[in-house]
């Protein structure tokens, strides 16, 4: 009864058999158990996409909102309750496409939000259109002459914005113990932590298959120093025959909500509203 799949048992997933999402979901459940985080002690905020269904498939507080809007909702929740562990789960289209602007500003704010992006380099829910990370010039039904835009490098973007925690994981079996460590490191990080998680899409991505990733993915060497931003920027450019995973960059930056004085002692949601004091403000208006 105390196993991870019992404690965090959720709805029956509607994902395709063989989807990389299963491995990410199960790794997350193990991390939560190992960290002693009970279902009511955290909230998963998600948007729309296959990845965004994840909170339903575990047991937790859930805000499953709109496509691309994961991070603003997660931010609002942190403003209301800065004692709540807030995980934001999104896909590559959700976070890098529709929600691109929110990602920029969430990184800038550096609120204590853990963002896990399931990056399969394709749109799954809408059936196979190019995503912001699709390799050029892959043809799709909506891009019959090939996806022509330069693929987004989410790690380079995050490092350029001085994101305080930037990592890449891999959802293949060989990468899961590593992903487990990355998720734990993200949860323990003070500030905005971002993990781009490479996963396969069995239905729509025939290029970046499980085997394609498996042959290329490796872990950053032990001597790698994630405090070196220039090195991080260099290493995150590596893509093709060899794809590094691990914590690329980590720094200490002021956490946004910690700089708001009124949140220092009690979360906003637990602060009792003083109606009489507020009425005096109206009465005393001049």
């Amino acid at each position, binding site marked *: 009864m105390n196993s991870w799949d019992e404690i965090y048992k959720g709805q029956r997933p509607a994902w395709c058999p063989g989807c990389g999402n299963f491995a990410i979901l199960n790794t997350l459940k193990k991390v939560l158990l190992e960290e002693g985080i009970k279902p009511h002690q955290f909230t998963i905020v998600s948007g729309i996409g296959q990845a965004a269904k994840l909170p339903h498939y575990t047991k937790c507080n859930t805000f*499953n909102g709109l496509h691309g809007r994961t991070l603003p909702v997660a931010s609002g929740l942190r403003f209301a309750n800065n004692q709540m562990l807030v995980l934001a789960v999104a896909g590559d289209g959700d976070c890098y496409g529709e929600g691109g602007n929110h990602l920029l500003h969430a990184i800038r704010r550096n609120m204590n939000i853990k963002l896990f992006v399931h990056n399969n380099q394709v749109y799954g829910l809408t059936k196979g259109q190019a995503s912001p990370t699709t390799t050029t010039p892959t043809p799709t039904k909506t891009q019959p002459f090939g996806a022509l835009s330069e693929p987004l490098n989410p790690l380079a973007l995050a490092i350029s914005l001085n994101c305080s925690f930037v990592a890449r994981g891999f959802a293949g079996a060989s990468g899961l113990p590593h992903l487990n460590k990355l998720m734990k490191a993200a949860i323990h990080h003070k500030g905005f932590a971002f993990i781009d998680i490479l996963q396969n899409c069995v239905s729509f991505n025939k290029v970046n298959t499980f085997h394609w990733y498996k042959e290329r993915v490796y872990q950053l060497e032990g001597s790698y120093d994630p405090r070196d931003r220039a090195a991080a920027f260099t290493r995150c450019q590596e893509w093709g025959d060899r794809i590094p995973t691990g914590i690329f960059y980590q720094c200490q930056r002021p956490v946004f909500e910690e700089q708001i004085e009124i949140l220092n002692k009690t979360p906003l949601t637990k602060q009792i*509203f003083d109606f009489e004091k507020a009425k005096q403000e109206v009465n005393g208006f001049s």
Partner: protein
Amino acid sequence: MDISIRIGGAAGQGIQSIGAALAKFFCRSGFHVFTNQDYMSRIKGGHNFYQVRISELPLSAALDEIDILLALDQNSIAIHHHVVRETGIIVYDQATGTADFTEPASLAIPLALVATEANGTKIMANNVALGALLGLMGQDLAGINDIIQQQWANKGAELVRQNIEVAKAGYDFVLNHSDHRLAIPPPSTKGYLLLNGSQAISLGALVSGCKFYAAYPMTPSTGIMVNLAAQAKKHGIVVEQAEDEIAAINMALGASYGGVRAMTGTSGGGFALMTEGVSLAGMTETPVVIAEVQRPGPATGLPTRTEQSDLLFILYGGHGEFPRVVFAPGSPSQAIALTNKAFDLAEKYQIPAFILSDQYLADCQWSYAELDTDSLTYTDYRLRNPELEKLPSYQRYQVNDTGISPLAIPGESSHLVVVDSDEHDEDGHIIEDAATRNQMVEKRLFKKLRMLRKEIAAPELIGHRQPEILLLCWGSTYGVVKEVTEILEPDHSIAMLHFSELFPFPASEEFAYLQLLDQASQTISIENNAGGQFAKLLRAETGFGVSTLINKYDGRPFTTTNLLGELNEFLG
């Protein structure tokens, strides 16, 4: 006594600080004051004006004729000299303008020179003008010292002293160089306070327990964010400037889900971006208050001007079908009360609630003896501990008789709070079956709407009880239509019906206003838009078609003067 002073000049010349000081002076002296502003979408240059109307009687609108024009540039003389009454006067600086006419009277004051001769600097010329205006109105100058003190306090005592000196010099200049005086009777003993629509909505939010406000700056809604930010520390409010309006409403929803009363504000263009978030609030049943401060559209329109053209947009903005309430206050005092009611109903029914304002309401100042707080309410409708923790189970979307499921806070108990933008079951999980869908629409929409309708107040009738002519209005036109009705009522069978609670549309049970409409020979909908949106709503909701529309869509508000002119042909 009914005196209007118009201060005209270019953006950046400080007309607002002169106008604000003047308004405050007369208000504190015990006069009723109404101020309105006309400004361009630029920081320097162009042409703006600030108008202050003063009377012993309550005021709720502006006039077109003025008694004093303070022209800080030649452009102001050219634009406004024809609206100065015969008995009025134009004050200008010969360094920046000329008055090549004999009527109305004019007085040239070398503002910068007077300032420097009084040991001030050229930049203090505006206070020379302020002193001069008070001289022309025969006021005791002592009252201005406190106001200057407040305006300049953060610049140091020496600058305060210099500015007071300079104002005195302007005052003395008038005494020495002009016999022109406007007759102003001694004031009542009691002072008034000044309040504009933006301040009122902010106060309404504050007194309703708003703890989170997220917005993206957009004229003319930004004042709400500025005012709340100023109160943030004292009243424990977090104000966040979001990256865009989409983020703003989603942040507000995230905060509301987290357990705090949350609000966002914008103008029409920003609201266009928010609509998917409004729909999200509807589906997830997350309470949120949205202030939409209208300006003329479409698109960027006239960014700093006024219009009532987003009524239908607000009523229908957001895909899908879900309940909402829409309020359009007619005055700052109504804005406090209706913002309070919006917060109350948003949380009670777990719906989006709208405050529809506009540039005119946002920027106009009304004078009040005091602000009523007795009618304000605060009820915490959330399900909190210890009750929450005691429940054997919790379902965010539990189906019950009222349609209002218990609203719990995530993390407060061992119960999980699951909300979803997909259609969902009682637990908040995704479903696609028809039976659950029907059950949820019944719960979310029909059951709540039935109860919501009973919360809506009837329209306000002012004037004749059985009028031949019935003027219909909504939102910010309240004041001007009221003033016009009161002017016409002694000689005509006329009344006005003001709708400040627009949706759900007021039922006719409590007050049979439809009967009044049927019995009136003329029903005239007065709207600051081109399409007569309220008249359309009235027809859609009641089947009643008004006989006449009076529309104004030039980006300027109705004034008492021009509305009287418009109504003239219907008076018989």
